[in-house]
Each structure stands twice: as C-alpha cells, then as structure tokens.
C-alpha cells in the first residue's frame, strides 16, 4: 500500500468517525481486518493497548495500524490522515459557523447518525467478543475459561468501575493462569 493510499484510507476513516473515537472502530475494522492487512487477533490486541496507554483511542489505533501496514512512516501518515478532516472542518467551523452544533439541520442529521453509530460500535464489539470468547477455529463454540473470565470481569466492573488499565492488566494476569 502506497503512502498516498494509506493517507486516503485514514482520511476517510477520520471523515466518517462521528461522535467520538470509538466510532472509528467499525471503520478501522473494515479497512484493516476485512482489507486483509491486520489479523483479527492483532486488531483486538491493538485495541487493548490503545485503551490502556495515553492518548485518544482513535489516534492510538490509527498510529498502530499505520505502523503495522508501513512501519514508522506509516504510523505518521495514518495519524496525519486521521486528523486532517478534523483540522479542516473545525477550522472552517471556528472561522464561520460558530453556532454549528445547534443548527436544526445539523441536529436532524445527528439525530440519525448518533443511534446508528451505536449500532456500528456494537458491530465492532460483536466481532471482538466473538474473537475473545469463542474457541479459535470453531464456529461459535464458547471457550469456558474465557466465558468465566468475562463474567468475573463484568461483575467486577459492575461493582466498581475503574480505569480500563486495571481490567486489561487483570485480564492479562488471569489469562496466563486460565489458558
């Protein structure tokens, strides 16, 4: 993949990421996993690292994916592509449309996109859930240790929500003993 097409791919992802970094997940998944550039496992591992290291998740994922595709320059080009639409659009809005987000037309369009974006994030969550909970190579056969770990961590989260780092570390340590 050339740097120009890498830039365009991530520019598109940035352009369609509406409503926060998580909304970039389904787009990234389609571009790099369905596109055959990154394995499903590696994608989930990238997400884990992006959630437990500093910086916005969407930017961390873009840097990561860009690196996997084209090395260190790839990391820079992908990140640049991802932020370019924001830079252009926000500067235009800051310069001319100060009441942009309260405009009725924007509210109407967002009224449709917001709930749909939730569905898209759910689709990415489903692909990741499938990867984490089902035995590799089988068709939807649940791994019992993985299911047990899921229930334990979900219960812990329900009782005392903490920063993602805590759960990712706990998952890693328990994983060593369980699998």
């Amino acid at each position, binding site marked *: 993949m050339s740097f120009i097409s890498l830039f365009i791919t991530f520019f598109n992802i*940035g352009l*369609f*990421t*509406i409503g*926060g*970094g*998580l909304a970039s997940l389904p*787009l990234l998944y*389609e571009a790099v996993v369905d596109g055959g550039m990154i394995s499903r496992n590696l994608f989930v*591992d990238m997400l*884990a*690292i992006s*959630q437990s*290291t500093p*910086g*916005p*998740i*969407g*930017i*961390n994922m873009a*840097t990561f994916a860009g*690196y*996997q595709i084209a090395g*260190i320059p790839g990391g820079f080009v992908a*990140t640049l592509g991802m*932020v370019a*639409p*924001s*830079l252009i659009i*926000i*500067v235009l*809005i800051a310069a001319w449309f100060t009441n942009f*987000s*309260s405009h009725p037309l*924007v509210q109407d369009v*967002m009224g*449709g*996109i*917001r*709930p*749909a*974006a*939730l*569905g*898209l994030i*759910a*689709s990415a*969550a489903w692909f990741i859930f499938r990867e*984490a909970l089902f035995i590799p190579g089988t068709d939807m056969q649940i791994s019992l240790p*993985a299911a047990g770990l899921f229930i334990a961590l*979900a219960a812990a989260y329900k009782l005392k929500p903490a*920063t*993602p780092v805590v*759960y990712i570390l706990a998952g*890693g*340590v328990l*994983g*060593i003993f*369980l*699998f």
Partner: protein
Amino acid sequence: MKDFFKDLMVLYSLFFKIGLFSIGGGYVMLPMLRLELVEKRKWVNDRELLDYYAIGQATPGIIAVNTATFVGYTRRGIPGALASTAGMVSPSLIIILAIAIFIPMMETMPLFQKAFRGIRVAVSVLLVSTLISLTKKGWKSWIDGLLTLAAFSAVVLLGASPFPVILAAGFLGLLLRRHRSGLQ
C-alpha cells in the same frame, strides 16, 4: 513575533500534557480539559468548553482532537490549531510506535499469547459496558433503538460497510425529524 512562537509552544505542550494524561479515551479527557483550560488558564468558560465538545461530537474526527483544534484556532489561528493538534497526537505517536515495535515479537511467546487471550476478554467486557452506558444516554425514543439495531444488522448480518450506513443514517435523520416536526 516572539510571543507568537511562545504561544504556539505553550499550546503544543499543553495539549501534549492533556494527551499524555488521558488514558482510556475521551471520557476522561473532559475533566482534564476543564482543569487546564477553564480553571488554570481561564482561556474559555464552562459554556464555551461544552460548546466545543458538542461541536466535536457533531463533526467528523476524534472529539479530543477537535477540541484541541478549536482551542488552538481561537487562540492563534491556523498555526495555533496545528500546534494544538500536533501536541495532542504526539504522545500517541511516541508511545504507540515504541510499543508497536515489540508486539509482533511478544505475540509469538506462549506466555504473552495466554495473557493476550485474557486481555481480549477484558477488552470485550469494557466495550460491552461502554456500549450499555452509551445506549442508556443515547436512546431518546424507540426509533433510535430501531436505527441502532438496523445499523448493527446491516454490518453483522448483511456484511455492509459502515461508511454507507453512516450516510444513510444521516439522511434518514433528516427525513425523520422533518416528518415528525411536520406532524406537530
């Protein structure tokens, strides 16, 4: 001129710091932005910050980057916007690239393979719980629920690309709201 470059450096280092200390995504960033921009520096007030956030949510891109661009632009024009955004993404670039170099190596070691299997489960727990809380806040009517379900099914069952789904949803939002306000 000297002040101008000094201001750019201040913007870069301020957003570098915010990027560096926000672990776990946009949800921890708002308190951080508030502390630095509203309380410490008094560059913006609470209302303006929430406006920036609202614009960030209604425009393409990562909310944190959008807010950084906005603040940078209002302080020092386009160079300010560039300096702030560069500051915001710099910690990610440095830290992620440093980690990314070791990941393929770690993935071949059995101990890390086991740890990563556990980590993947933790990631799904986090995603599911984030989705539940987003849904609680986001669904205003049964139509919203239907739109979420439709978008999910389009991608998971029909294998649709998320890009046209977003376009269709925006268009549908326009039609639905116009229709609803026409009834009132």
